[in-house]
């Protein structure tokens, strides 16, 4: 798949991912309500990365995703590194199954929903393994719901307004297989 896009197009895609990812981090950090019981802010970076990795896999290298995740973790003040690792794992899952998601928006929405729920759960498991205190499950569930909603909104914004379409699928028999 990497061979489909020309080198300048790939670099332009990477620059777009870096810029939009950074914007997503900044919006996620905006101070709206600092109460602990307030509705958690959605993970906008996940939405941007998910959209890019499905539609422009050659422009979304794992290293760039890890760097964006690390920047978000370090700037945010939470458990540093954990968010980057889970984001990278989610991105690789989406990259692996991208053909299926390109063909079926419903399958993509289902995967986004599942990953929105699995990411905070993975955090919870890691925090428990590290003997670190975790927020209540209700707060995590609210966060997962807002992340899913935001991921769908980001997808609509990027695909329909910014015209970030999908790269061509090389071999339709390889649906659901990594390239």
């Amino acid at each position, binding site marked *: 798949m990497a061979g489909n896009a020309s080198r300048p197009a790939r670099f332009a895609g990477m620059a777009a991912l870096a810029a939009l990812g950074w914007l997503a981090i900044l919006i996620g950090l905006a*101070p709206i309500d600092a109460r602990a019981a307030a509705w958690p802010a959605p993970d906008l970076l996940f939405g941007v990365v998910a959209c890019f990795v499905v539609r422009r896999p050659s422009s979304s290298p*794992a290293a760039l995703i890890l760097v964006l995740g690390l920047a978000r973790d370090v700037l945010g003040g939470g*458990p*540093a*590194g954990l968010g980057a690792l889970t984001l990278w794992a989610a991105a690789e899952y989406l990259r692996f199954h991208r053909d299926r998601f390109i063909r079926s928006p419903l399958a993509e929405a289902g995967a986004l929903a599942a990953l929105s729920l699995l990411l905070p759960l993975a955090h919870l498991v890691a925090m428990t393994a590290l003997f670190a205190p975790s927020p209540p499950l209700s707060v995590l569930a609210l966060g997962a719901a807002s992340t899913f909603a935001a991921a769908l909104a980001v997808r609509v914004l990027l695909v329909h307004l910014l015209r970030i379409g999908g790269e061509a699928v090389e071999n339709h028999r390889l649906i659901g297989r990594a390239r």
Partner: protein
Amino acid sequence: MAAREREDIGAEFGRLLRRGLIVALVLLALALLVLWRADSPRLERLRMSLADWATPSVEMTADPIGALSDMAADFRDFTRVHERNRELRAEIQRLRAWRETAQQLEQENAQLRALNNLRLGSRTGFVAGEVIADSGSPFAQSALLNIGADDGVIDGAAAVDGEGLVGRVVGVGRRASRVLLLTDFNSRVPVKVLPSGRRAILSGENSDSPRLSFLDALAGVAPGDQVVTTGDGGVFPPDLPVGRVAVVGEYGARVQVAADYERLEFVRILLYRPSTRIDTPGGLIAPRESPAEPGDAEGAAPGAPDAPLLGQAGAD
């Protein structure tokens, strides 16, 4: 043929480089996680370096989003304007009664000070800053301010808003600093409950009502009691308002913090430097040859009540 081989070698080298970079970044993420768990100051320094670099763009993004958030809040307030009006009228009545009480107490206080020839300690200074970011994650409760070491912010300083204690500075960059809110899991503040004077540690639990840990006894502690800082340890000034006891149950008490976290826009960082001079016999292993005067020992105790209350700090 040779050109093809060179291309293959180049492609293979690029692939190896990419894999090496990914492995290095994964190892870096794991190392940061370990540093975070170990509460390493290196991680905080890294955070503040990045925050210093990112402060202009964070501020640029926070301003329009803050304006949108304010508009939404104003609309909510507008929909319940009559109810708010009634609440405010009742509040004015209550405050008038308090003002009279405060004036009487101020006169009485001045008379008592004059009678005792009391020497007042130096006042605590402050520097005010704007909240430009919060943690954005349920796993941490912190806020990023647009003031740093260049503005005089010191590590560990108390952060207050107009209502009471907000938290503690845990990271200082040149142009930015990070405040750990009282509600964060890692927040621990020595407090006392008034009027009983019982001492406890206010422990954050990522909920709006932190717990009073190590409370020596629940007797004399009731909902509505005021909670203030003790000044123990010399990190915070004493008698800063923290909140009020919200619930007293079988398993302890919880506090409703006074700070308005819902609309946390500006905070003041108190520049409080208690004396850490050890000159009392109790503070040394070996006793001194000439014991200090009792008056001196009291004056040098960390957290001595020489710092003003919240309102006084603002008057500086």
